């Protein structure tokens, strides 16, 4: 069997009930079947994007809390991961999110000048800019990685950005990344003394 693409890997990690669902049209990039009902779309609906959001605790995460407490509804596609600072977002996290099934990644931090740690968000901005160029070189559409400055009081902004991003990624379709095979690495060497070689 082919090693599964990133899209299917993420599927296999989710609710196994969904695997039994009827198959819709194949994914245009990888040709793998798109089952119905996966993701937040609900029964009978087609694919919905999965977004990972890295939010800084001081500003954006607080804003998301505020949105929640104010009963603002917005697209439920994002899984939020809380960071101390947007400057802590290692580009490897973004790439790992994509390879583990995210169709989009959102980074949220404080407005320039407001960073709790002075300049963490400036680093985030530079990393983001460079990472965008790298992703484009690797064929990933720029809309899939997004950086937003959202302050603690801007719950409505969280709502707008989440909705907007979900729409944009829905249009783009799922991100299908080929996964290399990983042979089992479980041979026990125990000090690796070779037969016939005196230690």
């Amino acid at each position: 069997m082919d090693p599964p693409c990133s899209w299917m890997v993420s599927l296999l990690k989710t609710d196994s009930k969904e695997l039994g669902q009827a198959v819709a049209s194949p994914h245009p990039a990888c040709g793998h079947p798109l089952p119905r009902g996966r993701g937040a779309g609900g029964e009978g609906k087609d694919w919905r994007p999965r977004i990972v959001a890295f939010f800084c605790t001081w500003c954006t995460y607080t804003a998301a809390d505020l949105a929640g407490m104010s009963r603002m509804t917005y697209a439920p596609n994002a899984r939020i991961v809380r960071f101390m600072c947007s400057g802590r977002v290692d580009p490897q996290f973004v790439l790992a999110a994509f390879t583990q099934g995210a169709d989009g990644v959102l980074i949220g931090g404080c407005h320039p000048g407001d960073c709790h740690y002075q300049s963490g968000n400036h680093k985030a901005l530079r990393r983001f800019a460079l990472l965008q160029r790298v992703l484009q070189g690797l064929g990933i559409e720029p809309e899939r990685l997004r950086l937003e400055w959202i302050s603690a009081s801007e719950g409505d902004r969280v709502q707008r950005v989440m909705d907007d991003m979900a729409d944009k990624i829905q249009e783009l379709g799922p991100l299908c990344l080929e996964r290399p095979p990983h042979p089992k690495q479980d041979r026990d060497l125990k000090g690796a003394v070779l037969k016939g070689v005196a230690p």
Partner: protein
Amino acid sequence: MSKPKVGFYWCASCGGCEEAVVDLAEDILKVVEAVDIVFWPVALDFKRADVEAMKDGELAVCFVNGAIRTSEQEEMANLLRRKSQLLVAFGSCSHLGGIPGLANLFDREAIFDRVYRTAPSVDNPAGTLPQESVAVNGSRLTLPAFRDTVRTLDQTVEVDYYLPGCPPPVPLIAGAVTAILEGKLPAKGTVLAPDRALCHECPRQASKPDKLLIKDLKRPHQVLIDPEKCLLAQGLLCLGPATRGGCGAACIGGNMPCTGCMGPTSHVKDYGAKALSLIASILDADEEGEIEAHLDALVDPVGTFYRYSLPASLLHRRVRTGASAEGGANHGSHDHD
């Protein structure tokens, strides 16, 4: 007691790793007193059939260099894995994909098209392409399949140890071979090289400022390069801070920046991501417009940050749209390219 048997093999390789072993010169004499090299196509006349005739595990250790690009290389990797107690990925290509890994920015069709059809010196009106199987004068000739995607050795078979570098520095090779013969190997999966960034051993370390900030990124041909000063401090893209040491800073010795051939330290999974993070951290720009202007000097981010490590990276290759729909010549059925 008979001597342990050792093999060397090359996949999608340039042969530089073979030369590196030869460069052990006198240093390897102790080793070759202790082992029997029974397979090394560059130097010895033993054939594939000789390896196939061996018992499983008959080879004490096999060093395999080169990336995995064709079906023949996949077969040989699997064959040598079966016949070897220890399999060592030797050099950047088998470790991370190496420079041939840059082909993961393209696919077989694009490569074949350029090489066999559109290159300006090619005279091929019929558009002939190499075939996996073709009848010529009544005889059948075969070629290995050329995959769409370059892979590392450990994406193909189980690998026990890694010797990084393009090529691995001679002292590291000597150290690794000694460790193997003395049975003093670290945990399986270890990269047999120091686990610190290159800056620690760089002769120009003293001139690297504590707060390193680059105002203007320079390309090496645009400036005269001071042979004493830290290259990053001169505005050149030296990837030393993101790269594993152990090479004696040879390229810096040649007055050119490090390009990252030793790969990352053990703390990093995706080398390119860390390299780009390094540059982002030291860029002296805060406004979005300023940042973009500075980054324009970086004309090839993917090729610069992933020069040796694209196949091993998290994204592994450039995303292809409509890949299966295209098909293309030589496409085996679901050989998973």
